[in-house]
């Protein structure tokens, strides 16, 4: 087969595809005039903010949703005329992997082999190959529900690969999966493309993953903003990207830069701040930047994330640059340790979810708890909130022992959970009223706090809107203001940005920074490693233990010592530490 000819051919093409959903009286355009072409044997990724239409696009491509307009061609066959053809040549892994959790690994494989018509005599060889590829050989008789997130994802992938599909469609395959598993998945996908010339289309919220692809499709509100190879997104950004260091603490530096004129984006990256300037601006010529003490500016080459932010910025008419100013009055406590965790353990049956964990958090600190799913982050968190008693050890929050006065400690803590825990059918105002009454606020005090939330978090324009229908940024702010109603001095955030796109994540961290500057202590769990850089200090959790604790720099240095080479990215450090821990 002539390889060059094969690569020119198209695997999947959309031509002016439109899809709308009707919800009550509202029609929501999910895909608007979507046109693209995916080459045979290439890896393409779909990126875009939440609700951009990524999942809809994949479902339409599979024939699971019928578009109102447009043509879709799969390997030269229009899918409208041959719906069953689509399912014989594609493999699809939906967001939750599509596994039966009450079946074992091999029973799941048997089911999908039956459904995809894999001949019985081919199976042993195929199973062996896939189990070896996914490293699940030793788990074939385990129930799928008992696998870790990363293993589930690999099993889901194995199930879709049983019949060697020509086109592989993956919907956010790496969400909620730890970095080690993410890497394994990518090496499997790359091998498929190399060895079997499989065509791959995947959606992702990780921009570094998109950057590895041959082709990127950037969706926003159902429209394609741009598409092409990763470097085509950064073409206009040459000489606009800088790495900045200064005498300031990096979080303070990031805030200063973000609020300066001509700055499009400023993010913390390792020990420095990465700066994206607007067209026609130069950091050396902006006084506010130039005046920063000890500033050092290095020009660097752009990457896909810069292009992504620039493009969405243009689309949305400018990102909200200014962080919210908080005037939360932090009650003066003895300066110093706010959270003290001393050799705590938590046992469930004969399983230790948390074994011998100790750390301290100081006033005004942003402290991160970093770890893969099942590492014990949430258990630790629940114990800190007083929702779960410790099996052994002691812990105190704001100087109050949680074993003796959990309620008192809880009154000083604000808590925001992964899913925001808002009442979607209530309006913004009703949510604020409800949460203020939960915290026993009454009379003038209550009105003051509600007014504070409306003013400072800029919720006033949407106060009568139903909170379930708000854009994500507003939802985050509302959830945050509900957690801050009673002016806590400590804020607990449980995976606040899980599944959230880079824009919303940036906005959220802006608020967290502002809070921390006003003296609130913030404890946050995350599995987004870039986010770890925003923390003053962090603890890495693996299998209920903390093998490393310290500033991001200290963690990277510690990992560098183990790896015997300098480590610059937090992801690299994390993977190294996890490998080291599992060796012990």
């Amino acid at each position, binding site marked *: 087969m002539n390889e060059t000819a094969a690569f020119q051919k198209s695997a999947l093409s959309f031509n002016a595809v439109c899809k709308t959903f009707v919800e009550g009286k509202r029609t929501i355009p999910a895909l608007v005039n979507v046109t693209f072409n995916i080459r045979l044997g290439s890896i393409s990724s779909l990126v875009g903010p939440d609700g951009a239409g990524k999942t809809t696009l994949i479902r339409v491509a599979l024939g*699971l*949703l*019928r578009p109102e307009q447009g043509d879709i061609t799969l390997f030269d066959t229009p899918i409208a005329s041959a719906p069953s053809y689509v399912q*014989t040549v594609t493999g*699809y892994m*939906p967001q939750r992997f599509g596994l039966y959790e009450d*079946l074992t690994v091999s029973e799941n494989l048997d089911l*999908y082999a039956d459904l*995809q018509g894999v001949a019985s005599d081919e199976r042993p060889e195929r199973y062996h190959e896939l189990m070896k590829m996914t490293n699940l050989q030793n788990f074939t008789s385990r129930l799928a529900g008992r696998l870790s997130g990363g293993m589930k994802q690999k099993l889901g992938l194995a199930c879709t690969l049983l*019949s060697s599909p020509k086109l592989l469609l993956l919907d956010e395959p790496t969400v909620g999966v730890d970095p080690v598993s993410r890497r394994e998945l990518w090496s499997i996908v790359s091998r498929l493309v190399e060895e079997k010339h499989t065509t791959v289309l995947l959606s992702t919220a990780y921009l570094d993953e998109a950057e590895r692809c041959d082709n990127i499709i950037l969706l926003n509100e159902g429209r394609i903003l741009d598409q092409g190879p990763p470097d085509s997104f950064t073409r206009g950004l040459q000489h606009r990207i800088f790495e900045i260091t200064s005498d300031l603490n990096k979080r303070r530096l990031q805030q200063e830069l973000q609020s300066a004129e001509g700055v499009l984006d400023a993010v913390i990256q390792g020990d420095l701040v990465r700066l994206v300037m607007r067209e026609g601006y130069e950091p050396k010529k902006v006084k506010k930047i130039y005046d920063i003490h000890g500033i050092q500016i290095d020009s660097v080459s752009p990457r896909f994330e810069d292009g992504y932010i620039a493009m969405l910025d243009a689309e949305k008419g400018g990102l909200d640059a200014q962080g919210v100013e908080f005037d939360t009055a932090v009650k003066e406590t003895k300066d110093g340790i706010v959270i003290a965790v001393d050799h705590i353990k938590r046992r469930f049956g004969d399983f230790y979810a948390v074994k011998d964990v100790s750390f301290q958090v100081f006033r005004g600190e942003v402290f991160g708890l970093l770890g893969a799913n099942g590492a014990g982050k949430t258990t630790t968190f629940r114990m800190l909130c007083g929702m779960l008693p410790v099996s052994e050890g002691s812990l105190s929050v704001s100087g109050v022992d949680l074993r003796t006065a959990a309620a008192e400690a809880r009154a000083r803590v604000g808590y925001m959970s992964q899913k925001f825990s808002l009442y979607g059918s209530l309006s913004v105002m009703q949510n604020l009223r409800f949460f203020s009454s939960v915290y026993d606020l009454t009379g003038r005090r209550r009105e003051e706090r509600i007014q504070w939330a409306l003013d400072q978090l800029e919720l006033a324009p949407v106060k009568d809107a139903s909170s379930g229908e708000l854009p994500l940024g507003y939802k985050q702010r509302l959830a945050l203001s509900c957690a801050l109603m009673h002016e806590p001095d400590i804020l607990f955030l449980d995976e606040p940005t899980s599944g959230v796109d880079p824009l919303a994540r940036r906005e959220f961290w802006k608020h967290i920074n502002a809070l921390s500057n006003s003296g609130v202590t913030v404890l946050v769990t995350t599995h987004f490693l870039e986010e770890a850089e925003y923390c003053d200090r962090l603890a890495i959790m693996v299998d209920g233990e903390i093998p490393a604790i310290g500033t991001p720099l200290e963690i990277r240095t510690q990992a560098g010592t183990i790896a015997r080479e300098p480590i610059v990215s937090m992801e690299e450090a994390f993977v190294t530490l996890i490998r080291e821990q599992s060796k012990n």
Partner: protein
Amino acid sequence: MNNKEQGKNLNQSGSGATAMRLRGIVRKEFLQIMRDPSSIAIAFLMPVLLLLLFGYGVSLDAEHVPVAVVVEHSSVHTASLTAKFSTSRYFEPVFITSLQEAKQALINHKVDGIIYLKSDFSRILKTGYEPAPIQVILNGVDSNTARLVSGYVQGIWATWIEELAREQGSRASMPVNLQHRIWFNSQVRSQNFLVPGLVAVIMTLIGALLTAMIVSREWERGTMEALMSTPVAIREILLGKIIPYFVLGMGGMLLTVALTVWLFDVPLRGSFWILVSTSALFLLTALGMGLFISTIARNQFIAGQAAIIVTFLPAFLLSGFIFDIESMPALVQAITHIIAARYFIMILQTVFLAGNVWSVIIPNAFALLVLAIIFLGLSRFKSYKRLD
């Protein structure tokens, strides 16, 4: 490689591939049933529980009804009359001297009725010019029991008068001699008609409730989306759900019948095979309803609620299982015609108690067939291999 691909593609549409996919789904379904304690509970524990409840607990017969007997002036006659009450299995008489006290006992639910023999009872009876008065006061709060008790009292009264007349050598002045026989259930045991009806309730539980919830669970957990992206056809998915739950439903039915016959001594006078085949027909309608509900409700909670309201409760209340359809208002009677359990209960009670009465079985079985076709057809029509 190319040849292999070709061969496989041909295989996809052949009947061999259909059988393989069907086998895959059926096997998966059985594995899930075995691992899910709640399906086992609904299929096997629930029948036993309902049977024990209806077999031993619930009885529509009034037996050992506590009644207060107030005799103001005792005599030979009052003694022989009250003895009748004492020996009757329907009554549990409590002898109380004053009416006032008896009334209090009635109000406090200590007794369900009062039999009041006034002081002049014996005197009037002897003179024979006018009928001797006997007053029966009943607690109308439970109207069913009150009606039954009133009937029993009259029965006892009538036998007593007859015996009394015979003793005195004269024929009782009764122009009509009523001899009643109750066919098919001569002891009028309510168990005999309640327990067979449970077969319908249990099969509704398995066929409609369990099936609706199991399918909506696949939607909830996102596995339906994964199924639909494979070459499996929608009829294979439906059939793959029907087969296992059909087997489970028939298992539940056999268990219920076995317990009914051997534990509760309910006679099975008709043919066992007619029972099995009409049950199969009813189970298909129940499965059809369950699948139909799950095509509309894609979350377990709503599917469960819907199944209870449109299938389980009607099977209980509107099927003639407990409440007589004839005595319902005309509108409700009209509604019962679309309730499959109604036809099946009719067949069940006939086959168990009367035997193979074809004039009852055939029309009712036909109605079940029609409903099965409608519901299964609707679910087939409403299910397509798409998410929107």
